[in-house]
């Protein structure tokens, strides 16, 4: 039996571990064209700020990989020959597979602005990009950041930490308006301004100017011009579907897979950012761009590849991130609509967060300790916590298992309700009942 995994991200590594947990003898081959192999993609944000060295981004060493007993091939898969159960690598060599996992991830959408084919325009997909940014920030003085969501903020804060003057352009009147509420956006923006970031609201790029092939200035739709040595963008990501274009595998925005992470070919599986996984609870196929679902999908795909039939159960969409220095957890459904700073889904984003059913918002806290709950008919549908994270795990469990909050629902919605206390008390009794 030969298992082949395309992609060296967390979904791929997790699949290798899962296969090895049930199959000691099968051959496993991982193929990736990323020169750096497996590293923490979300950790790039902290490399940019200088909190960690790039060498610290690698969770596994050689000995760890040897224990898993798999072969790593550096190369780009150019074709999948389904009938032959084989891959073509770099257009020439051929590799046969019995079970295949496609976990090639997603990449940044391009910036489609006149003049964008010059040096100094950067994105944050890979470690290679991050290293390039760090190098350029050494001599660069001023940067413009466009886009939304978590990645744009990571770029903004990283460049600022590297000593650049940073202009952050926002199309609308506030940051991440379809996930954060007005107050939360204000908190983030205020903290960015305190860090020295210059925010430009209602601003959109019109044209990029260059000198000697390097970006030198941008012009906005309103005619304003900003001089810069770097233009960083994060306007969304798109699953990498080029590889499977002519394979006949079913796709929508990502590769469609059933709850066993199996594509329309029973010997081909897909997991991570490239997969659009079927959620049996809602009957929908959902794109996530989150670390933990990618890890879990990789695990489930690996088990299924090795013959252990296992279903992927999507948990309540959940992400932890740091927004302008504030640890923030976003659970379940907290906003609705589109973010005008984004074209596609953002990295570290989930579509679930915008499918808001009828829900009422309760709020408490101040500046750095903030909690917002989205309350449905009988259960919580979403929550945002900024700062203190004590209630994060309880809320995650309660939202995921649709805990019946009827006993405290009325009190939660009273003006100035102490929602943190109510939730904490409720959690204690609910936990006992459900024996969690």
């Amino acid at each position: 039996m030969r298992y082949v995994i395309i992609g060296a991200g967390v979904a791929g590594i997790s699949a290798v571990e899962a296969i090895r947990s049930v199959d000691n003898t099968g051959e496993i081959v991982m193929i990736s064209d990323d020169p750096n192999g497996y590293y923490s993609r979300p950790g790039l944000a902290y490399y940019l700020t200088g909190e960690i060295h790039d060498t610290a981004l690698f969770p596994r060493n050689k000995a760890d990989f040897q224990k898993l007993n798999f072969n790593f091939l550096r190369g780009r898969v150019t074709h999948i020959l389904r009938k032959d159960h084989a891959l073509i690598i770099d257009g020439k060599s051929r590799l046969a597979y019995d079970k295949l996992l496609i976990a090639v991830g997603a990449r940044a959408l391009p910036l489609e602005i006149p003049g964008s084919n010059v040096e100094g325009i950067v994105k944050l997909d890979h470690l290679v990009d991050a290293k390039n940014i760090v190098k350029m920030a050494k001599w660069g003085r001023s940067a413009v950041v466009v886009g939304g969501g978590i990645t744009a903020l990571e770029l903004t804060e990283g460049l600022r930490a590297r000593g650049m003057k940073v202009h952050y352009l926002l199309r609308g009147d506030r940051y991440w308006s379809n996930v954060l509420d007005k107050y939360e956006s204000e908190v983030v923006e205020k903290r960015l301004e305190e860090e020295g970031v210059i925010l430009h609201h209602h601003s959109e790029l019109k044209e990029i100017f260059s000198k000697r092939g390097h970006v030198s200035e941008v012009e906005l739709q309103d005619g304003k011009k900003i001089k810069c040595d770097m233009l960083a963008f994060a306007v969304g990501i798109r699953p990498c579907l080029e590889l499977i274009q002519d394979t006949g595998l079913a796709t929508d925005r990502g590769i469609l897979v059933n709850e066993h992470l199996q594509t329309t070919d029973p010997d081909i599986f897909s997991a991570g950012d490239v997969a659009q996984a079927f959620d049996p609870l809602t009957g929908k196929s959902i794109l996530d761009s989150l670390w933990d679902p990618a890890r879990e999908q990789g695990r489930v795909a690996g088990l299924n590849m090795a013959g252990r039939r296992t279903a992927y159960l999507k948990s309540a969409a959940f992400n932890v991130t740091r927004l302008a220095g504030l640890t923030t957890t976003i659970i379940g459904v907290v906003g609705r609509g589109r973010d005008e700073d984004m074209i596609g889904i953002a990295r570290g984003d989930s579509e679930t967060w915008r499918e808001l059913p009828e829900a009422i918002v309760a709020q408490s806290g101040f500046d750095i300790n903030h909690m917002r709950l989205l309350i449905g008919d009988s259960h919580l549908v979403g929550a945002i916590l900024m700062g203190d994270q004590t209630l994060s795990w309880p809320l995650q469990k309660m939202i995921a298992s649709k805990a019946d909050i009827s006993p405290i629902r009325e009190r939660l919605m009273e003006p100035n309700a102490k929602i943190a206390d109510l939730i904490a008390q409720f959690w204690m009794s609910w936990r006992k009942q459900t024996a969690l």
Partner: protein
Amino acid sequence: MALLNIFKSDASKRIVLTRGHVVSESSRCVQCGICSYNCPIGINVRAHVWRNEPVNHSECLTCGECVARCPRGVLSFSEIDIFARREE
């Protein structure tokens, strides 16, 4: 009264630090490595988190560097029964 409370919280902090272990919530972790990078004695905290295990490493000082520096609130101090597994 307020003063008493300060002493009380200081004492409980000490109790937690001496009896506690660093525990993790694996689903929040993205393996960035800030914890391992900052551990003064070089414990691979990140690997414990990947396996969703407490950092029950005999050399852990419970100094709290990893807890404080984790950007995602993955780590916390908690009292755990380190003998529980052996008794099973």
